[in-house]
């Protein structure tokens, strides 16, 4: 027993010795996608301001968004959005007291991943076929 000063007790959690689990991965992904969406919303504001500024500046913004880098950002934004949306609904269910049993946590976790993939695919297929 050490008296005075800081005892060198082990810190928890040691992330590097834990085997990644779907629960922890999905949890940190919710936070990462939330940060990504916060930053990505800048692009939405820029797009709105560009539209309000007039056709010339809108063409500049549109040119960036439809460049390969713009498409990449938009694709990443859509994946993050659908993930955060689906997992957010999962969080709201937990807030309502539903889905705390371990099998349910796993089932809803995989459902969130499936929903993200399906919604992203639907959105892009619809967007690319309907858009010019």
């Amino acid at each position, binding site marked *: 027993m050490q008296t005075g000063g800081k005892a060198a007790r082990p810190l928890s959690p040691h992330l590097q010795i834990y085997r990644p689990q779907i629960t922890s991965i999905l949890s940190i992904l919710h936070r990462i996608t939330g940060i990504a969406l916060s930053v990505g919303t800048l692009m939405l504001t820029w797009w709105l301001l560009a*539209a309000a500024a007039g056709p010339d500046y809108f063409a500049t913004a*549109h040119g960036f968004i439809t460049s390969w880098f713009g498409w990449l950002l938009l694709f990443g934004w859509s994946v993050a959005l659908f993930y955060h949306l689906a997992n957010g609904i999962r969080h709201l269910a937990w807030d309502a007291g539903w889905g705390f049993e371990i099998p349910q946590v796993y089932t809803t976790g995989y459902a969130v991943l499936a929903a993200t993939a399906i919604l992203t695919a639907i959105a892009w297929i619809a967007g690319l076929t309907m*858009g010019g």
Partner: protein
Amino acid sequence: MQSNLGRVRGMGSAKEGVSHWWMQRLTAIALVPLLLWFVISIIAHAGAGHAAVVAWMGQPVPAILAVLLVAAGYYHAQLGMQVVIEDYVHNEGVKFAILIGLKLLTVLLGVASVFAILKLAFGA
């Protein structure tokens, strides 16, 4: 040690009670239908030019929903980013400065977005 009144009111040391938690959920619930509407609308307008966007935002319902979307969106983002900063930034001064910057920036971006929508809605 907490007085009976303090315990019953449940406002905690920050005097805000559960308002942060509650507003995070309330904005989340609002954002579910708003984002579904927005994504579908954006897909429907994919590749459309400036005139189509102006015509879209010139209608009352899309303009109102767009204002609600950016308001709820930036509010939700601010609440979420606040928690992330509070979790990872441990220097009190730096944390305080970042939180002030975050709040001012999200208000600025939210107001700028609403201004752009209203300018489109009422005709530039």
